[in-house]
């Protein structure tokens, strides 16, 4: 069971308090009806399958209830960082496996 740092609570807590919520930075278009079929397909269905750092979302369900973003290395299964929803992607070159 992993330990996850909630950026809202500023605490590192057991995975059992959290739920996974899919890939991060997949933004719903402001006007979906203006999207082409191909673009809409990409939004709905196409996701990364990263070997290494992966941008993903978690929710602190049994806690503050917030959705937030994380970078997790899918090889080591370690979190590199977590950050609040809405913030831009962090620079991967600055990340280490020592999340707070």
């Amino acid at each position, binding site marked *: *069971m992993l330990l996850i740092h909630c950026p*809202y*609570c*500023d*605490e590192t*807590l*057991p995975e*059992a*308090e959290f739920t996974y919520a899919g890939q991060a930075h997949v933004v719903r278009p402001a006007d979906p009806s203006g999207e082409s079929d191909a673009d809409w397909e990409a939004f709905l269905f196409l996701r990364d399958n990263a070997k290494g750092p992966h941008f993903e979302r978690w929710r602190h*369900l*049994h*806690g*503050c*209830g*917030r959705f937030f973003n994380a970078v997790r290395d899918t090889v080591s299964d370690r979190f590199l960082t977590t950050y609040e929803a809405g913030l831009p992607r962090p620079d991967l070159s600055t990340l280490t496996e020592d999340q707070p």
Partner: protein
Amino acid sequence: MNAPVSALTPGPLVETDVVRVSLEAPRGRLSLRARGELAPFDVALGLTLPRKIGQRAAGDGIEALCLGPDEWMIHAPEAQVGALLSACATLYERHPHSLVDVSGRETTYVVDGPGALDLLSVGCPRDLDRILPGEGRRTVFDGVTVILWRDGETTARLDVWHSFAPYLSELLETGSRELAADAAAAR
């Protein structure tokens, strides 16, 4: 099968040498959601809403625990609920918020005694020592969302939605007896 919800009446549930678990009498509970300027709510509620998740504040008979960036659980005597709702309603136009009466939603266990934290560790995966006396958190106990109010070194309250109470009562009772048996074996 465990007990029906209606059989869980206020009073002691289990008492052993090391821990006592009881169900509290009904109390008023309000779920407050608000953003931005909080000072008007401090006035309306008669306490300073804690700004940091896990922190608590108390006013005249009422208590507030910050659960999320824009969320507080407020406990108050049942008789005060109406007045608190009205006081905040007058703020709504200028300070939109959501204040919902959830007095009927939850029930509260009081866990008390030298084995209190051990009993909670039966169901809580998080390190309970990091919830200091006087703080509180929403967390998980045996798969169920709970709000834990740590009132003292060996005293805590556990708020749960009442439909889960028969299930949780069973584990709190089993765990309390188990802890007592552990203590007896250690003597």
